[in-house]
């Protein structure tokens, strides 16, 4: 059972426009969410996070919004740049095997920013 869902495998956006990446979750016990960015042939790197006590967290061009009632979060990138082209993973602590030690990841969304 997929507890963190990213339903869009890919997204293409023009440079300078907004990129919106979506993530849904099913486990209401999740209280913290993270976004990771991954380039090909590299490990994922932490991008931004949000606690469930907030509904928005901003860091430069990156903003994450959390809608707890809808169990939905989104990552906004404004303005998008070609260097943002990567796979983005949504994640939450907790999961079936390792409990709070574990990050449960979505399947990822591949963002392509077109110059």
């Amino acid at each position: 059972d997929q507890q963190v869902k990213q339903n869009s495998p890919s997204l293409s956006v023009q440079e300078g426009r907004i990129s919106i990446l979506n993530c849904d979750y099913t486990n209401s016990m999740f209280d913290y969410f993270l976004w990771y960015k991954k380039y090909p042939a590299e490990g994922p790197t932490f991008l931004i996070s949000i606690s469930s006590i907030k509904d928005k967290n901003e860091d430069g061009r990156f903003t994450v919004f959390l809608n707890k009632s809808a169990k939905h979060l989104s990552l906004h990138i404004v303005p998008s740049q070609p260097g943002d082209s990567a796979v983005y993973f949504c994640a939450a602590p907790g999961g079936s095997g390792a409990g709070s030690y574990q990050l449960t990841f979505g399947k990822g969304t591949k963002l392509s920013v077109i110059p």
Partner: protein
Amino acid sequence: DVKVTQSSRYLVKRTGEKVFLECVQDMDHENMFWYRQDPGLGLRLIYFSYDVKMKEKGDIPEGYSVSREKKERFSLILESASTNQTSMYLCASSPGGNELFFGEGSRLTVL
């Protein structure tokens, strides 16, 4: 900066071979993890360790084992490699909070 180093970036092995993937972290983190990444499947946890000589199964432990003899080192072992274990393997460490620090990954191809 936290550094997580995976010993091999690319490996090619034959079916049935024993494979060792090594991971070392330099930040004295308690927790270490092995994930695999496959297209369309995201990152899936294989095993994790929260202390020396301690290990716990993740979501997909079948066909794998691990070893943590020293705090800084966490090894993933494929006792008898199979073609369905062709994947990108990612090691990560964590001081105990929510953020994981990943290595650069090891791309394993099993022929």
